[in-house]
């Protein structure tokens, strides 16, 4: 299909501001009378606050006050409180905030505050608390219980509670040693098909343990907010990756009517899942400002970002995979214990979902358990569950394929989802899949057939490895609102409540509206980022969700505009709306184009006609956020507004396939990625440069997960050892290939009006999988069974020092 805008590169309106410094982030805003707040973190991993003495701090001239848990609604476990008191559960957990006339004074005040703590036992390894007699991270237990409708009083996490699960010493010992923990209790289980019968039909069966270690998000813009109150309204400059979808939640945190919140967030310095929705410290910013009756800026440090900036959940697990003679996956059995940190639910079921769609096993069983530890709270991080499973699964799949005598790529293509692909426990359908075609395209780009025959030995110390891997994430939803205004001068304002998390999707999605309206992009204004700019209720931005979901809502708003344009023209020139067409930013009679008017003239008519044409009336099914926005624009032009009620069925799969070639130095344990090639299976490519950004950036994240990034906690005192960037450690220019070769499969999804699906998370999953596959290939198929694979692990393996990969140790060194 030939498009005007879809599939064409464009310059997003915010990019110039980013290269000139004009783009403003939350910390860049100032307000007269603004004061600076700082947080005091817990020095202990578990306990309770006995007393706080802030008298010396408050005596410092210019120190304005403190804010503690007593200033907030109670938040018993498993809520992640903004400020802790009774349940201190990790080092660095915020205990209080102090505000002063300057940031230096605030920091000086922190040093004068004396907090008395009562200690409790703590634990940093999920299997330690799972063992009978082991310490619990909370006084009342060690695991998340989902009991919808029975939430503990005062909890913010509806339908959850803290429970206790223990395994016998033998069960934990078996699990640590890489065997199935027979008879052990799990919190989450599902299966389909006759697993035992399908395994019996398999000629190749492998069993492997695996460990993935959590890692912090470390968004480069550390969490920042600046809030002030005027005439009962809270104006909040924040840093979220979504925008309007978080409006009601932030209002609730501040206990105000949503109509009295103006959230401003034009640019966000990274989120990666950690800023999808408002996070706890935002309650402190807004409420402290109200308490002091002064504008308050609360910005956290890089180290605090490690503690409260969220992190990926780690996994300790066991898997059994069966292949039939022809290489098809007959059965899979997988058991996962997630490290949920001091808060979070784990993502084991999503991990299993990755297996179910990428390899379409005939039968499968999943068992999962999320254990709390006294480590930093966990949350969504780029493809939670799926991507860490992609990482450890790839070398195991390679092993199974090699044992079965099937080429690794051919095996993946054979098992890849087709249009009739199934997913997860219920074996539901998917919106579309052209994954076999994507595999073929990527294999050709990488030249797999030629490279797999290359010698592994490069020199006396260097060996070559080539790898392949897949990524997946559900990538779309529906039911959100689109909103467009055509001004009397003909300017087309494309309103979106999508956040600006750095992918340019906020601009990409509204091009679906420009496409439908057949208008010049230069005549469009993208309206976003400020609550006073009348934004619609748009989707949350996480899970590769935006592109599919919001091209739909943009499209339906454009359809509403077009229908109104035709009705206005019919009222002016006679006939029925169906007698009219659009083109060249005019609406005209199809049989006589001289009978027509420009979009701007139609907008003037819309104002005169009133009613639905100028926003005086609006659909009953749009969200109250959208209603407020429409009401604010009544009578200012032609208003197009609609909720996405287009048909949708099945999961919307975002998928990707990657290939990796490395040169590994056996003397240093380091490797260079000399070729990275990846293809996105994400439907129609809407914005080619944006897609490359997503695929390349996801690739970098994959390399980080494979080789560098991890939590490290000292088990003796619960202290994290890597709170800084250089320790944690995100990849730099020197850790990644000098060129990256990525593309899109560009085959349309039938459930999107422009054929698009999302790709953000699979971009990482395919990369980590391909790199893990390449590392194993370079070392003659050796499985480390864990991520990251660090240089010391490689050296120890090469030196035959017996690195213990069977012991499922996580978080510790």
């Amino acid at each position, binding site marked *: 299909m030939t498009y005007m805008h879809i599939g064409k590169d464009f310059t997003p309106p915010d990019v110039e*501001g980013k290269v000139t410094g004009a783009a403003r982030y939350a910390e860049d805003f100032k307000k007269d009378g603004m004061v600076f707040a700082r947080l005091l973190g817990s020095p202990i991993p578990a306990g309770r606050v006995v007393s706080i003495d802030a008298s010396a701090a408050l005596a410092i001239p210019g120190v304005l006050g403190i804010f503690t848990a007593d200033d907030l609604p109670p938040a018993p476990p498993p809520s992640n409180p903004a400020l802790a008191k009774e349940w201190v559960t990790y080092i660095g957990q915020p205990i209080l905030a102090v505000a002063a006339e300057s940031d230096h004074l605030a920091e000086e005040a922190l040093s004068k505050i004396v907090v008395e703590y009562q200690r409790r036992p703590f634990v940093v390894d999920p299997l330690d608390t799972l063992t009978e007699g082991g310490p619990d991270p909370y006084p009342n237990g060690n695991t998340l219980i989902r009991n919808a409708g029975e939430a503990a009083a005062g909890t913010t996490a509806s339908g959850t509670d803290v429970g206790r699960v223990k395994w016998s010493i033998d069960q934990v010992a078996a699990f640590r040693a890489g065997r199935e923990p027979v008879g052990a209790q799990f919190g989450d289980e599902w299966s389909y098909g006759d697993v035992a019968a399908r395994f019996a039909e398999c000629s190749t069966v492998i069993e492997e343990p695996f460990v993935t270690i959590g890692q912090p998000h470390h*968004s480069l813009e550390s969490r920042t907010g600046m809030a002030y109150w005027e005439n009962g309204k809270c104006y909040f400059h924040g840093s979220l990756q979504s925008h309007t979808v978080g409006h009601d939640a932030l209002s609730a945190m501040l206990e105000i009517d949503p109509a009295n919140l103006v959230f401003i967030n034009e640019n966000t310095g990274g989120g990666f899942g950690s800023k999808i929705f408002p996070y706890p410290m935002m309650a402190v910013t807004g409420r402290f400002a109200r308490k002091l009756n002064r504008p308050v800026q609360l910005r956290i440090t*890089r180290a605090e970002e490690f503690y409260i900036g969220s992190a990926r959940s780690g996994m300790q697990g066991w898997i059994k995979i069966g292949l039939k003679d022809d290489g098809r996956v007959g059965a899979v059995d997988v058991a996962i214990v997630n490290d949920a940190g001091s808060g979070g639910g784990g993502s084991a079921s999503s991990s299993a979902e990755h297996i179910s769609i990428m390899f379409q096993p005939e039968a499968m069983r999943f068992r999962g358990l999320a254990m709390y530890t006294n480590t930093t709270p966990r949350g969504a991080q780029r493809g939670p569950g799926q991507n860490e499973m992609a990482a450890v699964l790839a070398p195991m799949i390679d092993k199974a394929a090699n044992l079965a005598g099937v080429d690794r790529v051919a095996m993946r293509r054979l098992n890849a989802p087709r249009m009739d692909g199934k997913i997860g426990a219920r074996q539901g359908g998917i919106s579309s899949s052209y994954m076999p075609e994507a595999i073929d395209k990527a294999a050709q780009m990488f030249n797999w057939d030629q490279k797999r025959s290359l010698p592994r030995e490069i020199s006396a110390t260097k060996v070559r490895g080539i790898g392949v891997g897949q990524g997946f994430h559900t990538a779309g939803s529906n039911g959100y609102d689109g909103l467009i205004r055509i001004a009397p001068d003909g300017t087309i304002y494309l309103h979106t409540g999508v956040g600006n998390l750095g992918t340019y999707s906020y601009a990409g999605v509204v091009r679906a509206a420009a496409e439908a309206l057949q208008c010049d992009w230069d005549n469009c204004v993208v309206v976003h980022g400020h609550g006073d700019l009348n934004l619609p209720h748009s989707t949350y931005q996480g899970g590769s969700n935006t592109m599919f979901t919001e091209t739909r809502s943009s499209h339906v708003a454009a359809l509403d505009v077009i229908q109104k344009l035709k009705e206005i023209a019919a009222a002016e020139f006679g006939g029925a709306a169906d007698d009219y067409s659009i083109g060249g930013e005019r609406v005209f009679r199809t049989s006589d184009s001289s009978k027509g008017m420009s979009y701007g003239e139609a907008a003037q008519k819309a104002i005169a006609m009133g009613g639905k044409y100028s926003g005086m009336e609006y659909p009953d099914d749009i969200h109250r956020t959208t209603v407020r926005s429409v009401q604010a624009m009544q009578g200012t032009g032609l208003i197009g507004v609609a909720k996405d009620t287009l048909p949708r069925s099945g999961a919307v799969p975002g998928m990707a396939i990657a290939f990796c070639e490395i040169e590994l130095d056996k003397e240093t344990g380091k490797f260079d990625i000399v070729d990275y090639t990846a293809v996105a299976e994400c439907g129609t490519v809407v914005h080619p440069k944006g897609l490359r950004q997503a695929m390349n950036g996801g690739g970098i994240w994959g390399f980080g997960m494979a080789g560098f990034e991890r939590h490290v906690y000292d088990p003796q005192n619960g202290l994290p050892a890597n709170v800084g960037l250089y320790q944690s450690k995100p990849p730099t220019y*020197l850790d990644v290939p*000098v060129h990256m070769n990525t593309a899109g499969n560009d085959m349309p999804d039938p459930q999107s009006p422009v054929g698009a699906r999302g790709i953000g998370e699979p971009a990482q999953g395919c990369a980590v999988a391909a790199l893990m596959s390449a590392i194993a290939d370079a070392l003659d198929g050796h499985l480390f069974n864990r991520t990251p694979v660090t240089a010391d692990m490689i050296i120890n393996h090469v030196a035959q020092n017996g690195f213990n990969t069977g012991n499922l140790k996580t978080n510790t060194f």
Partner: protein
Amino acid sequence: MDVAPQETLAHTLRYKLGLTGTKLGCNRGECGACTVLADDVNIYACSTLTHEVKNRAVVTVEGLRAADGTLHPVQAAFIEELSPACGFCTAGQVMSAVALLKANPRPTREEARLAMSGNVCRCGAYDHYLNGVMRASGQLS
């Protein structure tokens, strides 16, 4: 302007001069988001005392445009290559690229990678920044 002895250049630029294009990603010399030029050399403003640059020519990202408002070639190239992602590190990337091209107007991609390696991009837009450097140096059409 009154500058305290312990005041960092990043603090002075951001909070006293209002030049907020210079970002603080780590405030401890790890990320490079605060990179500025001092006598054409790229430095971390978070780890430089303001008094250290007394009588030196300090240029921030806001000072790169020509007098007529034309963007610096690095800025224009970064737009063309869609180099920024979230953009928080971008000012630092721009300044390191400007410093590189002053010292080495036609770097190889590998040289550019080494020169830019003090600037972390958590979004992982390295390939796009390198494309921008190569375009700004006239080696990419």
